[in-house]
Each structure stands twice: as C-alpha cells, then as structure tokens.
C-alpha cells in the first residue's frame, strides 16, 4: 500500500508540465545520441550536466536519467540499420539485427527491439520500486568499513570486466583515484597535487575529465579511421512483429530482462555486460544455435531487453547506497551533488518526492520512447546519413561549450583538451578509460571512508574482516583479482570482457 501511495506521489511530481518537458528532452537527446555513432550517453550527459543547474533537482535528474535509458533504445536503431553500434550496449544487436534488416526484416527487428526494451524497462522500474526502499533500510546500517569495501569491490568488478589486460585496468583505476584526490584534503584541508595552481584547489572537475576521455578522445580515434556505413535504404514497413516473432522472442525477452536487471545492480556491471551475457545465454539455450549471426530475432530481443533492464537496475546501488555502479551513474551522482543532494540510504526518506518522481518519470519516459522509436524511425535514418566530417566539428564545439558552462572557467577547457589527448593515446595503447573515471569519482569517497574506519577502529585493520558485509565484498574482490591467474577463469573473463566506455 505504501508503495502505491509513493508511486502516486511520484506521478504527481513527474506529471508536472516542466518535468514532462525535461523528461521528453532527456529521452529525445538520449535516442539521438544512441542513434548517432561516435557520441554516447556519457558525452551527452556530461555535456548537459550544467543545464540541470537551471531547473529543480527533480527536472535535472529526470532529464539525465532520460538520456541514459533513451540511449539504450536509440542505440539499437543504428545497430540494425547501419551495422554500427550507436553505443556500446548495442554492439551485440548488430550481429542479428543487421542481418534481419538485410533480409528485409528491419521493421520487426526495430519493433521487437523497441517493444522488448519497453517491457524490460518497465520490469526494471517495478523492481526498482520494490527493492530500493528495502535495500535502503538495510544500507542505513552500513558503516565506513562497508562502504570502503563495497567501493573496492565495485572498482575490481569493473576492472575485471574491462577489455584486455587486468593489470592495465587496475593501473587506470589507481590513476583515477589519484586524480580524484587532487585538491584540498577533506579531513585536514591540506592541498594535494595542486602544483600551486589555484584552479586545482577544488580538484579537477568530472565534466572536463569525462568529456575529454570519452568525447574528444573518441572523436580523435574516429577521425583516423574511415567509418563505413552500410545503411539500409529500403522503406521500412510493418514495424510490429508477427505472432511467430513474438513466440520466438517471448522467452529471450523474459530471460534477458531478469538477467539484465541483476547484472545492472552489480557494481561494475551494466548494460554492456548484460547484453553480451543475454546473447550468450540465448545462443546456448537455442535448439538452433546456428541461426544466430544470420538474423535470429532472439539475438535482438534478448540483448535489447537485457540492456534496458540493466539500465534500470543500475539505479539501485546509486539510489540506495550512493555508490555509482558505472560511469553513467557516476555522472548522475554528479548531477545529485550539483544540487546539494547525496544519494544514499536516506534519500528515499528525506526526499521522497525526488526519488519517486524520478521513478515515475521513467514510466512516462519509456512510453515516450516507444512513440519516438517506432513512428520516427524514418527521421533517425535520415540523421544517420549526416557525414562524420560535418558531425565531429559540431561534437567538438558542443564539448567545449559543455565544459566551459559547467564551471565558467577556461582552465577546464584546457583540462578537457588535455584529457582528450590522453584518452586518445590510452585507447591506442589498450588502456580503457572507464575504470579511470569510476575510480576518479569513487576515489575521494573511498579515501574518506577508509580513513574514517581506521580512525574509528583505532587503526585495527581487522575491522574490514570482522564486519560480514565488508568481509564478503573484500573476499569477492580478492577472488576476482586472482581469477585472471587461473587459465580456466581467464578464458571466461576474456569471453565477457567488454569495452564499457563507448
């Protein structure tokens, strides 16, 4: 009953005209960046982070959340029609989605993708409503030791799932922590690594780092390659899947939704992992696995449902524990902090309007996405024909503007350009930026909780082992760190390792 009352309260907030407008802007921009290859939700969210300042916290965060789940929807359009993933979570959709399009079945592929995403997104929201309040009440009991261990686990999981060498990913995470510690020490107020620059006293901003590594870095990488676009030009008809399509897709959508939701909750996990895992699961369960890769609708329905369910599930650790499980959620945390709010166990009780308003807005946003994705496919296809040599100067322009507006400081533009160059070289040498960014956000929180727990326990390191939740997190982190040393587990890691960043 409480949940129903809260949901009604949430709809009261979400249905305010200004919030509907922000939700629409969010899902529209999300779909747009999802559709356009070379610009993902991370770039778009960091670009629009300063815009959230102009409105209420509810409207700003509703818009940011809309960009995230909107991009999950939009990414599939590019994958199916162009065979280029609009964003990382849609990589798998290319395999069977584009094959379906080549066989003249682009309509059902796009339709099942949008409808599967809608079902999964709605399920994730219902679960978010049911799980988040109870988890938040448990999380109140968390002390600094639990938080520190949970953050260590989150970082280790992300490095475990990152493509390539784990040592490289861990090195990136360490560099991220160091970058996060630049500025005044929160306990002693001593300046650290500021090199006498007054601009660094408050630390480096999240926006220039993210925009540099993901926005500019990606542009630099894309310009050195010739992006081949194999756009399906045939008229797309019959978007609604037929009875047989539904029969084949129902199971994958159901399994993908549940799998995606739980993978989304895990720190370090997320939509990308979920889509790959769902594809692997469907191929394994299929009676005709040989159809996969040749236009099997299950290969579109499962991963698309999984990545949308994961996008919903990822809100749980952020809203209940205040810990972002991935880079996108780290940016959302930034949006909360800009408005003086701290997501965590007390958010739901202290700001029920905000929490339930965001949840309710996601229902509305999911409906808007169905409207945007099905009838407006033609418009998105036209947009895909925009050549990259026209698009990338505009991306750079908006990146510069976004960074400048976040702080009104030209220094941040220098930082962004610097990180853009670093991001380009990092990718060239096989170093993933995602662990760096997550560690950059978690670093100060980790240090704070680590030092607090050491002060409270009077230097007793056993405090991390004696507390069951902390011990479990650390144990899991150790297992994941040792795993790549064992050949069997190493092969498994390589199978699921992904590029989380794009």
């Amino acid at each position, binding site marked *: 009953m409480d949940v129903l009352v809260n949901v009604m309260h949430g709809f009261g907030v979400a249905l305010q005209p200004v919030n509907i407008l922000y939700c629409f802007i969010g899902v529209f921009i999300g779909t747009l960046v999802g559709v356009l290859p070379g610009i993902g939700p991370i770039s778009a969210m960091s670009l629009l982070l300063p815009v959230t300042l102009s409105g209420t916290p509810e409207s700003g965060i509703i818009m940011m959340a809309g960009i995230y789940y909107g991009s999950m929807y939009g990414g599939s359009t590019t994958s199916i029609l162009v065979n280029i993933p609009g964003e990382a979570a849609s990589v798998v959709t290319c395999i069977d989605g584009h094959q379906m399009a080549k066989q003249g079945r682009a309509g059902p592929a796009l339709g099942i993708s949008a409808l599967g995403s809608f079902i999964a997104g709605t399920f994730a929201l219902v679960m978010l409503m049911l799980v988040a309040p109870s988890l938040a009440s448990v999380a109140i009991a968390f002390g600094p030791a639990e938080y520190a261990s949970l953050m260590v686990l989150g970082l280790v999981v992300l490095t475990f799932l990152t493509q390539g060498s784990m040592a490289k990913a861990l090195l990136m995470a*360490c560099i991220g922590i160091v970058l996060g510690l630049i500025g005044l020490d929160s306990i002693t107020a001593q300046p650290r690594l500021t090199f006498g620059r007054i601009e660094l006293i408050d630390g480096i901003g999240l926006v220039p780092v993210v925009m540099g590594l993901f926005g500019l870095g990606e542009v630099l990488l894309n310009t050195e390659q010739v992006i081949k676009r194999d756009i399906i030009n045939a008229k797309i008809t019959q978007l609604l899947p037929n009875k047989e399509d539904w029969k084949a897709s129902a199971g994958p959508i159901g399994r993908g939704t549940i799998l995606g939701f739980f993978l989304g909750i895990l720190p370090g996990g997320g939509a990308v992992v979920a889509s790959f895992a769902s594809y692997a699961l469907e191929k394994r369960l299929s009676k005709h696995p040989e159809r996969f890769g040749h236009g099997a609708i299950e290969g579109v329905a499962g991963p698309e449902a999984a990545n949308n369910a994961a996008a919903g599930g990822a809100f749980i650790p952020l809203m209940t524990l205040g810990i972002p499980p991935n880079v996108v959620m780290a940016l959302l945390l930034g949006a909360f902090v800009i408005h003086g709010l701290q997501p965590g166990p007390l958010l739901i009780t202290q700001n029920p309007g905000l929490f339930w308003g965001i949840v309710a807005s996601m229902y509305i946003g999911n409906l808007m996405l169905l409207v945007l994705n099905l009838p407006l496919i033609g418009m998105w296809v036209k947009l895909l024909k925009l050549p990259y040599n026209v698009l990338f100067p505009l991306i750079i322009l908006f990146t510069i503007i976004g960074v400048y507006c976040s702080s009104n400081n030209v220094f941040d533009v220098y930082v962004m350009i610097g990180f853009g160059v670093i991001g380009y070289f990092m990718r060239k040498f096989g170093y993933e930026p995602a662990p760096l960014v997550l560690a950059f956000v978690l670093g100060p929180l980790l240090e704070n909780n680590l030092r607090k727990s050491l002060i409270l326990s009077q230097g007793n390191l056993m405090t991390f082992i004696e507390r069951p939740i902390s011990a479990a997190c650390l144990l899991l982190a150790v297992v994941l760190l040792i795993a790549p040393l064992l050949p069997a587990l190493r092969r498994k890691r390589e199978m699921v390792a992904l590029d989380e960043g794009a």
Partner: protein
Amino acid sequence: MTDQTRPPFRLNNSELWTGVLGIALGVFVIRSGLKLKLGTINDPGSGFMLFYIGLLMCAFAVTIILASVTEGGPTFGSRWEGASWGKPGAIIVILSAYAFALEPLGFLISTIPLMLLLLRVIDPVRWTLAIPLAVLAPVGVWWVLKRGLLIQLPSGMFEIG
C-alpha cells in the same frame, strides 16, 4: 614458456614503455604521498592514500612490463598501422592553438576559425557548407547561451560576444 617459444625482446615494444611510464607515475605519487605525510594507521594523514596507491601503481606497472618481456607486445608503429594518424594529430594541434587563443581573443573570434579549420583541414567539407556552418554554429550557440541561459562566454580583449 621455454626460451625457444619466448618472443624476442624488443626495445620498441610499446607495452614495455607504457609500463615504464606507469612506474614513473607511481614513483611520483609515492613521493607526493611522503611529502604530504603518511600519518599513523590510527590517524592516517593526507599522504596516506596517495602513498599506498603509488605503491600499487608501481606493482601493476611492473606486471605490465613483465608481461611485455615474457609475452611480447605490439610496437609503436603497429599501433597506428592502417590509421591516418595525421588527422588526430592535426586536431590536437588545432585545439592546442585554440586553447591559447580562447581567453585573449574571446569565444566568437577564436571558435569561428576553429570550426573552419576542423571542417576544411581534417576531412574537407565543401566551402559552401563549411563557411555557413563555421559561422552559424558558434554564433547560434553563443546567442542561445547568452540570451537563453544567461551564460557569458569569454569575450576576450576585443570584448566581442
């Protein structure tokens, strides 16, 4: 791995040098931590975390170096094989020049040439599209920010914008 199957050690192995760079960064972080004072285990100081993170950085960098020696790795040249590195290089040069020009010249005077260079130098767009886009995009953004969101972009010494 036996000596016969082990790849030959090459100095232009890019993995090796990124590992060396990692060690250098790690040593720098350790030194910074020591300078800031470590404190004690029951009252950690400002340099406590930096010091231990620096140690971890060195450890991971050593792992990368060891892997590069035992397993080999791509050379610097092979990282750019088949890629036109001149284009990102040109963008970096143009953006660096822009960074220096932005504050003294202001947003509009520096951004219009930036856009024109990006549109014409990297992967040339025809002049009839490049010029309007290079002018209209920055002016449009400037107008929306100034009038709509009341955000002042740098106006530079000529106070334009």
